[in-house]
């Protein structure tokens, strides 16, 4: 079978060609996403330095803040930089659904078990 990434008239690659104006628009969006990523990272570092007293209610909130900000950053990278948000729905969910389902389950079960082992004194 002919490899479709090597043919000159690769319809999928060719359909991606765009004009100068479209390019300018994409570049603008890229800079917006970049500044958002940078701002979120700066906030995370500031929280890590100034609000890192462990074992308090604030720390619980900060921790969840970190997780939410990480999810937002990851979403921006995958959807915009990796362009997955603009691919066909079929490809998007082919990639996202199995991964999200599996990792959430794995993280949940591991953390629950680890917390249990710690609570029964297996920690140290």
């Amino acid at each position, binding site marked *: 079978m002919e490899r479709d990434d090597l043919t000159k008239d690769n319809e999928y*690659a060719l359909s*991606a060609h765009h004009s100068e104006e479209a390019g300018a628009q994409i570049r603008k969006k890229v800079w917006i996403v970049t500044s958002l990523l940078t701002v979120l990272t700066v906030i995370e570092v500031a929280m890590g330095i100034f609000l890192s007293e462990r074992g308090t209610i604030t720390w619980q909130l900060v921790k969840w803040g970190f997780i939410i900000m990480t999810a937002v950053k990851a979403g921006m990278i*995958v959807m915009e930089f990796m362009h997955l948000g603009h691919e066909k729905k079929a490809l998007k969910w082919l990639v996202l659904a199995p991964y999200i389902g599996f*990792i959430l389950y794995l993280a949940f079960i591991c953390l629950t078990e*680890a917390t249990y082992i710690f609570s029964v004194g297996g920690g*140290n």
Partner: protein
Amino acid sequence: MSEDNTEVSSKEAWGGGVSPVKTSYGKQMMWFFLVSDALTFGALLTALGFMKHRFADVWPLCENVFYHFPGTHAHLPLIYVALMTFILIVSSVTMVMAVEAGHRLDKKGVIKWLAATVVGGLFFLTSQAWEWDTFIKGNEAQSTAFLLPSDNENIAHLRFSDDHYMFNEDGLGNPVELAIQAINSGEASLELANKSYASKADAVKFLENNAEQIQGANLKRNEYGLPLYANFFFCITGFHGFHVFSGVLFNLIILVQVMIGTYDKRGHFEMIEKTGLYWHFIDLVWVFVFTFFYLI
């Protein structure tokens, strides 16, 4: 039964010849590879989470480990790691720009942005080498970490009250004796592995009982605390760093291909998009490593 054999156009039913996901073979396979690679990183980070919860009371805090910055002795927690994160984000941006230039068939633009991405990757690798070097060698002056056989083989840290983090540089002599002196004079107290402070009498007792000064890190023991902590550091950042290294290599190969005109002949620059996916993935993984290893 009779209705079933009505003609269906190939636009409605997939009869071959078209892709259900409307991407080329190469791009699709890159996505599938990235999903499997992401599972590996996901497993590593989940294992880290497991151990962090299991040893919740004695896991070292990264603010107390990663506070060095090249060219200064100031205490700057996490700033260097943040800088590394920023370098990787910027190199991801230059990669998007290279892909975008490729869509306009702008060969010069692709060369410019792809070269910038390679430079960004090399910057990150060098930063990581420096971080590993600092982590392995430990404090430049004498380390204030002590292995206490009488406290379950845990690592305790001497904390000075006047906000410096190591012995004075002229502090020559037996480090255990120096530590006992500092505690007796009230200059310092001993922070145990579970982050509580030992009383003066306990601290002296622990130190006198075969305590040993630990400096730097290897796979068996490290001055920061649990051996697992350094093991996870080496394993996760090392695996990620190897991805960065191969990413730089791929980008270099593609850069040469662009320069000698391979993709002009092919009529499209989709190869930039494929290596671009891999490069963004490296940035994506680092976002998670940054949060789950360094911050939480």
